[in-house]
């Protein structure tokens, strides 16, 4: 394999909770092959689960629909994009958790931002949300 090239893997996943575990196994395989250490693999697993959970919860809730995931890897990083086709959300409305009044929801994006090196949330009203997150194989840049 040419190390300089970028590899792209595309998945289309049913909007069903039972597939989030399958995605965790898939991303563990991809990250392991790229040489991530165990701690970073755990971070990626949690982050992608949160993104999938968001897609399933806030995307179009029809089970016959799918959402999509792209894994773009090169020798130094893994870029994961999770796209749903829901209503979109206002990413600037997401606040860090308040301990005095912990809420039962809204932790997902906060967790993704904490665990990944770069996170972009692209939300187009009516066209769904894309969560794009990057993890570097080596030390954080």
């Amino acid at each position, binding site marked *: 394999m040419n190390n300089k090239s970028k590899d792209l893997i595309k998945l289309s996943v049913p909007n069903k*909770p*039972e597939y*989030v*575990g399958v995605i*965790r196994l898939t991303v563990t395989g991809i990250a392991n092959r790229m040489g991530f250490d165990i*701690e970073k693999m*755990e971070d990626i*697993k*949690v982050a992608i*689960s*949160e993104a*999938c*959970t968001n897609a*399933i*919860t806030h995307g179009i809730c029809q089970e016959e629909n799918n959402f999509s995931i792209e894994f773009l890897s090169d020798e130094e990083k893994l870029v994961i994009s999770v796209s749903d086709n829901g209503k979109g959300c206002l990413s600037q409305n997401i606040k860090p*958790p308040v*301990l005095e009044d*912990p*809420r*039962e*929801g809204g*932790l*997902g994006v*906060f*967790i993704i931002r*904490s*665990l990944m090196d770069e996170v972009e949330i692209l939300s187009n009203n009516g066209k769904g949300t894309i969560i794009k997150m990057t993890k570097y194989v080596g030390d954080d840049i």
Partner: protein
Amino acid sequence: MSLMINKNYDEVSKTWKIQLDGEVDIYTAGKLKETFIKMLEEKKESIKIDAGKLEYIDSTGLGVLIGVLKKLKEENKNIIFLNIKPNIKKLLNITGLDKIFIIEG
């Protein structure tokens, strides 16, 4: 991968003991929530969670735990974690939830 839940009530210490084995995510969080609701209906006492075999939990699972803790706090009761794995400890740290749950061992 699924979630197995084992619970029993300890009359002596007046606490619930619950063992979680597997993964808590959007697929299994509902089952966990139902279990907790039944437990609290029966007895509203502190819950000790043995997390030695809990491999994974995400925000949906943490959300369930926060909801249960809120109900327990009305009676000054707590959620206590035992044998927690490093990956889950990290998640509790970054969310600040390590300050509202009691973490032992």
